[in-house]
């Protein structure tokens, strides 16, 4: 599939939804991708099944604080510098890149690298949504190594990280990103084509496209935006259940920073004045309760959206008084496997309860 300039806004919109409240605002990533596509024409999106087993594929994305990333902008050479260094280390050319996480700005990040290197973007990613830390990627869950990994910053600094332990890798990368100004580009979990096929979340880039396009088309045809979005998500097969969890107004918001994370709780009251939804977040939305009863939890997606425009409202943009719809979606099946839940399920975030799939929690909601 060719990705034309006109399609980028769809990808950004869809990626924002898949961020589940995190991943940052993809606006700057969108501008960057538009600039890159102007220089390099169109991008090639390659289905995961079409990459050769022996290929070298490189997941990449940005690590750091979204609040810093709007001020300290990339110089455009970070991704290529990191990927070139990985090629030197591996002694061979990179055949394709993929987003480490599809959710938020990182969903568009590899487009620029792909354009510069002239390689395709693989239609897959490492998270199927957004998560706060690098070890929450499916590649770590499936015991693949994050290293060798290359971190680059706009000042031209470059660091190669070598460690056997993926948690240590996350810690090193995180501190380096802070030392380099709060935001850096990371090429990590280099994979063979075979490993990518066996482990990456397939079809998530095109799923983001369809989600974004569905909203755009519904706007154009004055149709129900959320019907269109949830239908498009279900149609992808990757997010087999999706529906509106709540409709209301934000009436309270608490947040604090703990351990570098933005942690908090948002309360939304229904327009009838009877129902209430409470969502806890740690960068991403983690758990939603309707009238005290859990109705969705990580790794399933919980995204708060503007109820008029269907623009995603990330957790840092939540504000008292916003009129919103909360959309839930089942996470890709790979994230719901038992060993995956250790890393991305409710226990991983200290929520103290067992994972129940969103479709079970909302048995009466439309599939």
């Amino acid at each position, binding site marked *: 599939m060719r990705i034309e300039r006109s399609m980028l806004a769809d990808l950004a919109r869809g990626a924002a939804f898949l961020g589940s409240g995190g991943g940052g605002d993809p*606006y*700057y990533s969108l*501008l*960057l991708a*538009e*600039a890159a596509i102007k220089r390099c024409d169109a991008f090639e999106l390659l289905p995961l099944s079409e990459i050769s087993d022996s290929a070298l594929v490189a997941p990449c994305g940005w690590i*750091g*604080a*979204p*609040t*810093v990333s*709007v*001020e*300290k*902008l*990339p*110089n*455009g*050479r970070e991704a290529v510098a990191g990927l070139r260094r990985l090629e030197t280390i591996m002694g061979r050319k990179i055949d394709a890149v993929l987003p480490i996480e599809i959710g938020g700005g990182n969903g568009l990040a590899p487009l*620029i690298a792909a354009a510069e290197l002239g390689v395709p973007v693989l239609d897959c990613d490492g998270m199927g949504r957004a998560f706060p830390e690098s070890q929450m990627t499916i590649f770590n869950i499936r015991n693949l190594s994050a290293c060798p990994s290359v971190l680059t910053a*706009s*000042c*031209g600094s470059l660091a190669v990280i070598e460690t056997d332990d993926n948690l240590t890798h996350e810690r090193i990368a*995180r501190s380096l990103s*802070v030392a380099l*100004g*709060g935001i850096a580009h990371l090429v990590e979990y280099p994979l063979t084509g075979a490993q990518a096929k066996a482990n990456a979340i397939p079809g998530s880039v095109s799923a983001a496209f369809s989600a974004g396009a569905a909203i755009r088309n519904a706007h154009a045809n004055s149709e129900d935006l959320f019907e269109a979005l949830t239908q498009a998500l279900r149609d992808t097969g990757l997010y087999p259940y999706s529906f509106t969890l709540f409709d209301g*107004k934000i*009436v309270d918001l608490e*947040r*604090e*920073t703990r351990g*570098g*994370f*933005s942690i908090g709780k948002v309360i939304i*009251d229904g*327009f*009838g*004045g009877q129902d209430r939804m409470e969502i806890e977040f740690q*960068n991403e939305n983690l758990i939603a309760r309707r009238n005290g009863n859990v109705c969705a939890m990580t790794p399933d997606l919980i995204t708060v959206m503007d109820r*008029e425009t269907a623009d995603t409202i990330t957790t*840092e*943009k939540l*504000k*008292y*008084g*916003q*009129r919103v719809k909360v959309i839930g979606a089942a996470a890709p099946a790979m994230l719901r496997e038992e060993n995956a839940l250790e890393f991305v399920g409710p226990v991983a975030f200290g929520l103290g309860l067992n994972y129940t799939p969103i479709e079970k929690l909302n048995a009466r909601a439309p599939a």
Partner: protein
Amino acid sequence: MRIGVDVGGTNTDAVLIDGSQVLASFKKPTSENISAGVSSAIEAVLNRAGVAPSAVSAVMIGTTHFTNALVERSRLDEIGIIRLASPSGEALPPFTGWPSDLTGQIGKHFFLLPGGYEFDGSEISAFDEDKVRDAARAFRKRGITSIAVSSAFAPINEAMEKRAAKIIREEIPNAVISLSHEIGRLGLIERENGVILNAALATLASHVMTSFEYALEQRGLNARLFISQNDGTLISAMHASRFPVMTIGSGPTNSMRGAAFLTDIRDGIVMDVGGTTCDIGVLVNGMPRESSVAVDIGGVRTNIRMPDVLAIGLGGGTRIHFNPDKNLANGSTLRGLRIGPDSVGYRIMQESFLFGGDTLTASDIAVASGHAIFGDPSLVPALSTEAQTAIWSRIQAILEDGVDRMKTTAGDTTIIAVGGANFLIDDTIKGAAEVLRPAHASVANAVGAAIAQVGAQIDKIIDYEKTPRDVAQANLRKSALAQCAASGACENIEIVDVEEVFLSYLPGRTAQIRIKAVGDLADVSSTTIHSSERAIAKVTRAH
């Protein structure tokens, strides 16, 4: 006494206010020659009240000049911008994503130079004096005198932008220089976009302010001239000529502030119905609620503070698409009924049936159905009661939907109906606990300009591990109050808003704090509403 003037796209409104009393008001279509219009509006209110020009101590003007210039792409300067952030940000140079008809007017002259700061205040790269000087010379060679400077994390540290300004001034003594930290908040691209727009308005702003001053002089006024800003506070004309972009949302803000003043309501919804649109805004503690999203100005994304206003295409001149002949005969009254969004606007006095024209407008319906009295009702085509009721309720439904979209709490709220066509809002509109129509409602915007206060705003990133939270906040409050006093406030100076946003993914406890202070101008403290309810911080005026 003060005179407030609001120059809108359709009408120029003026009021003369003494203390909290409106002595005279005036409304007429905005003229081609805006300063002549302002001058005659001032003359009119003085004459109506029988007040001598010497009794007026201050004139406050809100104007739509700058918005129009940006939207129409006219009267804009060619500008040059220097960004201090390299090597960071080179992938997104200035003007990325701008509409080409706008860059066609103002050019695309930029330099990406070393400089800027990291989030912790350290330098991204060292300031390069020679490079800045070379850039300034290049602009001078092209004859560019409107110059903008942006720098990474300038809201935390503005030092480099100021150093650049000094060098530019040395090279181009007549330059008008706009610095990003003076315009916007965090978000380099949006802030830089705002500062570029500001620079593009430099020449126009200077002309407009000169013409306002001339208008005052012409009427023999020896009064101070203030311009109202987006947030409802005032700046001096000299200040406004440097920061025109800070005034472009002042129209809706002024009507909301005026509505609050005329009714003594601090929290509620204001609906300002003009000839073409109805602007709906929310009052929180007497001030307009601010928009939390990026604001699009003339197709450019900025983070300039603007009131959160929903504009609906429904006003007194809105066309009612409906064929009375076809619909009356058989009683099937509503076939093809459409309300607007087109409007006859200021031509309502010629084109609506009420005034002898042949276009059916919302005003015709309001008068025909007994909701307003003006014009000549006998000229409106005879409509069945069913048709009138149906059209009227369709109009109400549009307005009700707008109210619902702006409300932040369940339950009914107070609605203040202002603007020349406020009669379009029915007393029984859904969502309203009550509909207030204060005296002088049709010139609420000019009232809002006249009673405006001066203010100051501070936006900083603080690491609470370096400076304890209470100490940091106390310091910022102090400097906000001091800045407010320095801008001319002398009484009832108070902090009206504190916002704190923690920055995630960074070590420690780093937060972005925004503090806003407002205060009354010297001779108008009597206009303060509910001053006893406020925590009053007295600050002695510096001069």
